[in-house]
């Protein structure tokens, strides 16, 4: 079985935010919620680098471990999904997630957060594949159509890679070799501990 992974090549990411809008466009994510975001480090200075980040679908996902209602589950592909019917919007997954992936409709007064929303690796949720319910809650289910996440597919410089971990790391390794100098892939070791990587 494939193990799905994201990898962002910071040497290539140019903060064009295509991944962000592609995701919003695909899943009709409301204003204020960003399943994916791009972070620029050392903005405007030598050494500036950008990294696109979303749920990394960790191997041993912290969100899964802390959820008080146990609403997360991991598919055989290694994609971490959650059940919005169970979610109570407590925010614990946000406390635990290393990557700030969980999003809430509104972090307001009196603990009102709404149901958590996060990147699904374009794999929908527990509702029936391609059902209207599924679309409404989780967005499109591209995985069920045999497609990879839209953010990576539309990345302007092919910086963001998604898919089977072996293939992704091969592509990245080739690039690093081609460049002659390399960098650690951001977040990789954190999200997929123990897995083969660069």
């Amino acid at each position: 079985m494939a193990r799905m992974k994201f990898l962002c090549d910071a040497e290539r990411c140019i903060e064009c935010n295509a991944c962000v809008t592609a995701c919003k466009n695909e899943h009709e994510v409301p204003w204020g919620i960003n399943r994916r975001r791009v972070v620029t480090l050392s903005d405007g200075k030598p050494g500036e680098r950008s990294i696109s980040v979303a749920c990394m679908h960790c191997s041993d996902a912290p969100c899964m471990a802390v959820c008080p209602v146990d609403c997360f589950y991991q598919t055989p592909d290694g994609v971490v999904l959650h059940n919005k019917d169970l979610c109570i919007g407590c925010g614990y997954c946000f406390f635990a997630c290393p990557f700030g992936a969980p999003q809430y409709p509104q972090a307001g007064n009196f603990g009102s957060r709404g149901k958590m929303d996060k990147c699904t690796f374009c794999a929908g949720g527990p509702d029936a594949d391609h059902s209207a319910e599924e679309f409404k809650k989780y967005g499109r289910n591209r995985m069920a159509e045999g497609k990879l996440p839209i953010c990576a597919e539309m990345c302007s410089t092919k910086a963001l890679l998604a898919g089977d971990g072996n293939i992704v790391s091969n592509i990245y390794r080739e690039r690093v070799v081609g460049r002659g100098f390399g960098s650690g892939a951001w977040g990789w070791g954190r999200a997929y501990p123990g897995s083969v990587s660069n």
Partner: protein
Amino acid sequence: MSFLQIVEGPLFYIAAAIFLIGAIWRVIGIIKIGHKRDLAPPKGSGKVGFVAGNLRHFLPRKIFAKRTWVHIIAGYSFHFGLFALLLFAAPHIDFARDRILGFDWPALPRWGFIIAAQFAFAGLIMLWVRRFSDPVMRLISDWDDHIGSWLTFLVMLTGCLALQESHNALKAIHMLFVDVWLIYFPFSRLMHAGTFFLSRGYTGATYGRKGMTL
């Protein structure tokens, strides 16, 4: 038909009908008692007295205010909180529009809702605590009072627990208590919500005719 559909559908309408008919029956019963014949020619207006009696009683008297300020604050806190909740909570307005009235009005924001609920809860709890811890209150309270308090409390509590509006079960439980509460209402002291105008007014009118100022 799901449980929720029953409690917010037919059962609700039945309960509401009982509530309405019962309340009207109670009010008619009170009105039918009429008022005592005047033994002397009235010196003032009974109508003015009726209104004045109602208005005057909204203000606590100094002599009581000092001794029972907790009670008074709790009373106002509970009643204002409850009415804010009942009339201006967004889900309630939606319910009224969709099931009863067909129109809506501006709602409280969620935080306003919660603050109103907190006032109502604080007031209700204090009032009930007083009911069993004050010897006089304990003595004059009967089951009707306790059931009324508890039913109201449960309606409020279940409503607030359903605040996330994501689980129909919670909503159904809330609606169930609402239905019970509606049925219980006209035949209990809860009816004071409708009859206190009459009683205060009656006293006020009596005084008015006697020429007393309140």
